[in-house]
């Protein structure tokens, strides 16, 4: 019993963020025996992004019901309250050190330094904004990220605009196409840079087809007009290398442009703690126990990699909480053999990036995304070059996270295990 008894720590476990990841991690840690837990949340209440996601589709795997975001959050908030886990709201963490000292500021608690036995990063992600997209034009009012528009409509009760063009067919863009339409706006079209949509197929049906909103694949916004307020946007088709195709420009008069162009895990704090990040996901590199390369700092949820389904966020976060508890009881894994998980052909990235076969759970879920749309392929897992299992998947798309389950017994059949490879193959 090393670190848990460390009297110099103010809390055994500090969790950054009380969204779905932070809440599930807190519950799991408490149920695994961690006593002094502090959850720090910058918003006034827990729930994270779920609070503004008023559409249904949450909880199908977890509860067998289709709940709205706030309803799903409410279930976890209730479980946290039942366990009397301490949470601080309106409190922003500004720094984390390698030694797990967390600096936080709030009106209520002032400037505080908190020494933690372990830390779980659960800060979620941000949206890519117009500045990163390099779209020409002035800076008129009327350009919002889709999530910002969602917040305005669903929490502040205000309409961002009336004549809307949406760039990006990720789920947030699709959901807002429907939301704005239901509130009386006229959504002219959704333009998507890639030749396929990044959102769930069900959202194409429920949010676009249902409302006759055109989806233009391989299109992007090439110009924004308007000085004080957006007055028009110009859409063009893109060809190879995503360059606009001459002669395909179409101008749409509108007063609002919503951008749904990618989610980026929010890892400024992780960087200040010296946590190594994966350049593909933008989130920390973690092993099978979801620990980063900094001793005792774990990551889960959208800060680790952007998820499609909150049910999987909860499962992942639950494991992070459980593993943080195990870490507190027995310390770190220095010296344990690590085997890298390689993302082979067709696989964009995997979480975790490596496994410690001696210490892994009996069953480990490796989550990953493919790098394109694939039909009629199988997911094949290799251990030391020998195929372990094949999973046939008729359709796979980057917008839908996949998984492979590895069993400890399977890995232990290779005492000299040195490589784990996951890739796509025909058939």
């Amino acid at each position, binding site marked *: 019993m090393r670190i848990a008894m460390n009297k110099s720590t103010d809390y055994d476990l500090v969790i950054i963020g009380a969204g779905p990841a932070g809440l599930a991690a807190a519950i799991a840690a408490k149920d695994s025996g961690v006593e002094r837990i502090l959850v720090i949340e910058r918003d006034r209440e827990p729930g994270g992004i779920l*609070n503004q996601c*008023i559409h249904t589709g949450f909880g199908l795997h977890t509860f067998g019901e289709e709940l*709205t975001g706030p309803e799903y959050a409410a279930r976890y908030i209730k479980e946290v309250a039942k366990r009397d886990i301490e949470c601080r709201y309106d409190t922003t963490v500004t720094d984390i050190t390698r030694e797990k000292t967390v600096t936080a500021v709030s009106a209520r608690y002032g400037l505080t330094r908190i020494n933690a036995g372990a830390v779980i990063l659960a800060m979620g992600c941000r949206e890519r904004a117009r500045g990163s997209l390099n779209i020409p034009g002035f800076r008129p009012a009327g350009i919002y990220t889709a999530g910002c528009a969602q917040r305005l409509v669903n929490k502040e*009760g205000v309409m961002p605009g009336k004549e809307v063009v949406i760039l990006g067919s990720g789920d947030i863009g699709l959901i807002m196409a429907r939301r704005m339409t239901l*509130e009386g706006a006229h959504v002219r079209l959704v333009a998507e840079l890639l030749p396929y949509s990044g959102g769930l*197929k069900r959202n194409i049906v*429920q949010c676009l*087809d*249902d409302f006759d909103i055109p989806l233009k694949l391989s299109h992007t916004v090439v110009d924004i007009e308007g000085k004080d307020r957006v007055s028009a946007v110009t859409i063009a088709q893109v060809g190879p290398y995503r360059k606009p195709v001459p002669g395909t420009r179409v101008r749409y008069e509108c007063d609002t442009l919503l951008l749904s162009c990618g989610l980026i895990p929010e890892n400024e704090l992780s960087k200040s703690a010296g946590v190594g990040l994966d350049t593909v996901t933008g989130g920390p590199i973690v092993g099978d126990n979801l620990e980063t390369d900094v001793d005792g700092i774990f990551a889960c949820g959208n800060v680790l990699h952007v998820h499609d389904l909150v049910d999987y966020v909860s499962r992942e976060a639950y494991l992070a909480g459980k593993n943080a508890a195990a870490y507190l009881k027995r310390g770190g894994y220095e010296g344990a053999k690590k085997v890298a998980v390689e993302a082979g052909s067709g696989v964009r990235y995997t979480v975790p990036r490596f496994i410690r076969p001696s210490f892994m759970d009996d069953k480990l879920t490796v989550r990953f995304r493919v790098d394109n749309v694939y039909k009629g392929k199988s997911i094949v897992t290799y251990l030391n070059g020998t195929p372990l299992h094949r999973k046939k998947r008729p359709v796979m798309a980057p917008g839908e996270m996949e998984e492979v389950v590895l069993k400890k017994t399977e890995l232990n059949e290779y005492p000299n295990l040195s490589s784990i490879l996951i890739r796509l193959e025909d058939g």
Partner: protein
Amino acid sequence: MIKRELTCIGCPLGCPITVTYENIDSENSLSPSEPCGADPISNQPPLSGEDNKAAVPINHAGRVKIIDITGYTCPRGKAYAEKEVTDPRRTVTTSVKVKGGIYPVVNVKTAADIPKTEVFACVNALRDVTVAAPVKIGDTVLKNVAGTGIDVICAGNVQVSPQSCEM
């Protein structure tokens, strides 16, 4: 005989399903080759409800004969496909104004799915509804919205504000 390609919306898998069927009611306004239930919601008349029920048939169940359904990977998919052709429905999620709460709006949903043709009628009926804080998940907001027999209920919590937060 009509073949309609659907994407199931029962779960995020979104299985592609093909439904083959016939329109059997010769008195209806649909031609034999016109798909049922495929109309976009926005093409529906903005306010149907009781008066207009005769003008916009909602349930095609008596008028459609399903011949075959293929492509589903679970029973929910088959059920969805059949329903989508005979009696297409949607759950509506939106927000209504709150008086005296820490937020000016609260999110609501229809307690069950309602006919696709009534979606705008539902949203319009909620336009003039204001609820008083505190409101919690499950509270009834509007009974029998747009004559569908289905209630609109609260799907979020809004506490009372120490100072008023009205729109």
